[in-house]
């Protein structure tokens, strides 16, 4: 079973992991314009989401802005 560790939690993908970051965001129903991502600790600029290939077992962080002081 292929997995990704997304925001600290392991998520299983029975049909294989999405090929790119953009495909992952689509699958999770997340608007890519509102998030910023890290793959294995490396920040991915938004314009590079579609070229960022994902591999089994990678650690993905998806963060966004919220209210704060």
């Amino acid at each position, binding site marked *: 079973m292929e997995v990704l560790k997304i925001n600290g939690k392991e998520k299983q993908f029975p049909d294989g992991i999405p090929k790119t970051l953009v495909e992952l965001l689509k699958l999770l129903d997340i*608007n890519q314009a509102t998030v910023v991502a*890290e793959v294995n600790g490396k920040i991915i600029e*938004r314009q590079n989401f579609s070229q960022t290939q994902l591999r089994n077992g990678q650690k993905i*962080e998806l*963060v*966004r*802005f919220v*209210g*704060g*002081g």
Partner: protein
Amino acid sequence: MSKLIIAGREFHSRLLIGTGKFASCELMAEAIERSGTEIVTVALRRVDIENENDDILSAIDRNHYLLLPNTSGARDADEAVRLAKLARAATGINWLKLEVTPDPYYLLPDPVETLKAAEILVKDNFVVLPYINADPILAKKLEDAGTATVMPLASPIGSNQGLKTRAALEIIIEQANVPVVVDAGLGLPSHAADAMEIGADAVLVNTAIATAADPPEMAEAFKLAVEAGRMAFESGMPSISKRASASSPLTGFLRET
């Protein structure tokens, strides 16, 4: 009232607004507008991949307001630097409110880690606005490290206690060559006016506005208080004396010699 200049950028408003704790994005947007602010802070958090997420940025017009991401949640310099880089990737701007608060009870900032993170971030071309305890020596060290402001606390975040650190704030203001933004603990417009009257360049307010029964009305109250306090400061403050000093002439009374 003179303009506030931070890192070469001019602002008409001396009130910075935090966006936490508002009941809705609509109330937040209205409060921001009524406050007259030009700088609003936001935080970075993990996306909840199981539930729908509000998009706070859609409620903030970035043509009107400078977005100032904070590093809240960072417990040390490394975490703060990581958050700073994520924020810059997300916004495309390099302004940052640096906060490193390892203590969850009082949320007091860690001076050692804050200075360490500031040095790294300034070298990486960030415009750094560090949240600090009201420590005049630390404020000087941060200024020397190249931060754009210092942001000493009035009292613990969200505590609404007002200017508990007054004596130290006065020393920081006296010595600083960068703008001093009094941040945290300002619970009432009078607290904000108080900070401005002692010569703070600006204040940052969040909880007192966001948790008011009518946040937009409170936002405007803070706007007026900040303006009043600054105008008083720029007018030259009167001296304090122990004894009375008559305002009316002491001659020509209607009585016999």
